[in-house]
């Protein structure tokens, strides 16, 4: 009897500890008009410093990721209770209204993981909205910065080199520049084909993704040297460039289309002359000169740090050496015309 009572007490205590502090994600805040001033208003995290995802907020990973000055990225998906995402053509995913995609950016600084910003994409009844939140120095709250900001950062890159950069938090419009498809904001990263195997399994087993959507062929990790060079290069272009360089994106007028699906060699840049590149041409004639990476506008712009020349236009103040090496090797192996 005493044992049983003791067990009940333990259960009650356990219940109290696990349940008391957890408020659910604030669906009403996601859905309401307006722009919440603080990240904490959404309740995506249970701790003030934004590391512990709340119930229903799931960490996921991509096969191939956008380069953002070597920042570490932590991606989360939130769906309203009982609802699912559905995979669509060309890898797009359709998320129910009330969904949120949350992405924190940070660096290991002086041996500690620190967050600089957290961007949220909210699916409201009238479409998606993208908002940037910047973390305070104490790492206790992130505050809305619609106009973006710059943050000085010193960190060590993967090769161990110390880097001093002026990290750019994009403004709300710049969020849309990359996330726009025919003028509407859409998610970029979480396409079924680009979800890591583990993340895909997790979403399916949590019933967050429609079962049939799991069968789509996936895009390789561009960093995986075991995969064919061409598909690694195309994966890199798809995730780093194609959000603007597609027929409905911000760079539609360029005629340079770098999506995974693109079939036309000219639109991929092979033998394609620039249209509005200006000094971004670097004096070269073609976006891609087969066999000649050092004569290709694509390489010139990817390895430049100068505004007006550098591509992508936002989110990069360092050269992605590994990515540039991959594309350079790909172009070098193309047969000269």
């Amino acid at each position, binding site marked *: 009897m005493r044992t049983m009572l003791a067990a009940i007490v333990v259960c009650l205590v356990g219940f109290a500890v696990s349940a008391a502090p957890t408020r659910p994600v604030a669906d009403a805040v996601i859905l309401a008009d307006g722009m919440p001033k603080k990240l904490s208003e959404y309740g995506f995290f249970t701790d003030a410093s934004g590391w512990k995802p709340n119930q229903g907020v799931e960490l996921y990973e991509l096969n191939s990721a956008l380069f953002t000055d070597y920042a570490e990225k932590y991606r989360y998906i939130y769906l309203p209770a009982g609802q699912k995402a559905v995979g669509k053509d060309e890898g797009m995913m359709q998320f129910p209204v009330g969904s949120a995609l949350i992405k924190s950016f940070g660096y290991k600084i002086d041996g500690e993981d620190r967050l600089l910003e957290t961007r949220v994409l909210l699916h409201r009844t009238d479409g998606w909205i993208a908002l940037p939140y910047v973390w305070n120095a104490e790492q206790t709250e992130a505050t809305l910065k*619609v106009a973006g900001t710059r943050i000085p950062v010193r960190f060590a890159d993967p090769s161990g080199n110390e880097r001093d950069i002026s990290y750019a938090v994009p403004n709300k419009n710049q969020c849309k520049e990359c996330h726009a498809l025919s003028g509407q904001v859409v998610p970029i990263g979480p396409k079924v084909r680009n979800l890591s195997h583990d993340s895909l399994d997790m979403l399916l087993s949590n019933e967050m993704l429609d079962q049939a959507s799991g069968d789509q062929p996936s895009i390789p990790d561009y960093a995986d040297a075991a995969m064919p060079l061409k598909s690694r290069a195309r994966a890199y272009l798809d995730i780093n460039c194609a959000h603007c360089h597609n027929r409905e994106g911000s760079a539609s007028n360029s005629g340079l289309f770098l999506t995974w699906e693109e079939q036309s060699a000219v639109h991929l840049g092979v033998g394609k002359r*620039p249209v*509005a590149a200006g000094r971004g041409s670097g004096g070269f004639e073609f976006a891609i000169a087969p066999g000649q990476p050092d004569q290709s506008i694509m390489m010139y712009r990817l390895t430049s740090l100068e505004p007006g020349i550098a591509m992508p236009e936002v989110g990069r103040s360092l050269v992605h050496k590994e990515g540039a090496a991959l594309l350079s090797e790909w172009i070098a192996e193309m047969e000269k015309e």
Partner: protein
Amino acid sequence: MIRTLLAATALCCAMPALAKTITIEAGADAQERLQEALILAEPGDIVELGAGTFELTDGLSLDVDKVTVRGAGMDKSILSFAGQLGAGEGLLVTSDDVVLRDFAIEDSKGDGIKSKGADRIVYHALRVEWTGGPKATNGAYGIYPVEASDILVQDSVVRGASDAGIYVGQSKNIIVRRNTAIENVAGIEIENSFDAEVTENLVTKNTGGILVFDLPNLPQMGGHNVLVARNAIINNNTDNFAPEGNIVAGVPAGTGVMVMANRNVQVIENAIINNGTTNVMVVAYTQTFDDPNYDPTPREVYIAGNVHGESGFAPDFDGGKQLAAAFGGALPAIVYDGLGEGLIVNDAVAVLNLGLTKVGQAPSEAKPSLYKQSGAGETVALSPIVLPASMEAALK
């Protein structure tokens, strides 16, 4: 009384928020204050720039419909991008029914002002300038609307663009009037566009004055219906300073008007004076291309009523000098490559026909002669461009 008051309150609540004016002054944190105003503005609002120089560190952007950005004058409210660290242009507009007027953009790292997919945009009394004058390191375009319908660029000044001062690309229904384009590679360029009027502009000291082009492999092709009328196109002899690879890098210094791969272009009643290669050039696209939907030739180009000054005294292309010598020291005022069809010239000047028979043919295969047109030399006037009344009203 109470009922009236309640009714009035209900009426107020039902109406959208009243348009307001948000004034931003130059000074510390200009980047954040101005960008925030451009983001938080609501349709109908005016974002007013105070007098002074705004030192900006990144590109600015506007994505709210029906917003007016207005300064105190093109020499008073100056947005300086000399210290710009990022972005492809000074100001980017991606929303509809926007009016930009009475301010300046200086020294942006990429383009000056770009508007993409921004319908019914008005650019009025702006100055976009690279203050160091012509340099290959200047941004490409000064005023750069692209992929839109209903565009008005008026009373603005553009100087130093390493591609085109005013460039309208892949758009429809366009008026470019009463602007000054000086010391750019191309003064004004209409590219892959339909239904445009370029009138009453002063275009001087550029490499080429006014270009009407069409290029392959782009979402919108088949440029046509372009009127170039009543412009002063004078002394466009600046050495070409465009970075190689760009199409305008091939424009000879001393070109007044150049029509390439377009249909139904009318060049009428301009004063075209002192352009060293030629006053008007009508040619096909010369580079290799792979695009079955692209027509590289010039068709139905009509040239009439222009006043021609001296020209052709310093042709800036291979073999130009020898060719000029053959014509008594100067090239004729109009040069035609012989490709395409339907060229009509009613100006009382000589027209050189290079006699090419194939697109992309080497100039060495030219068989130069004087052009003799067939037919009566008449054409049908282009329909006037009509813009929505709201755009003309914004100029008042």
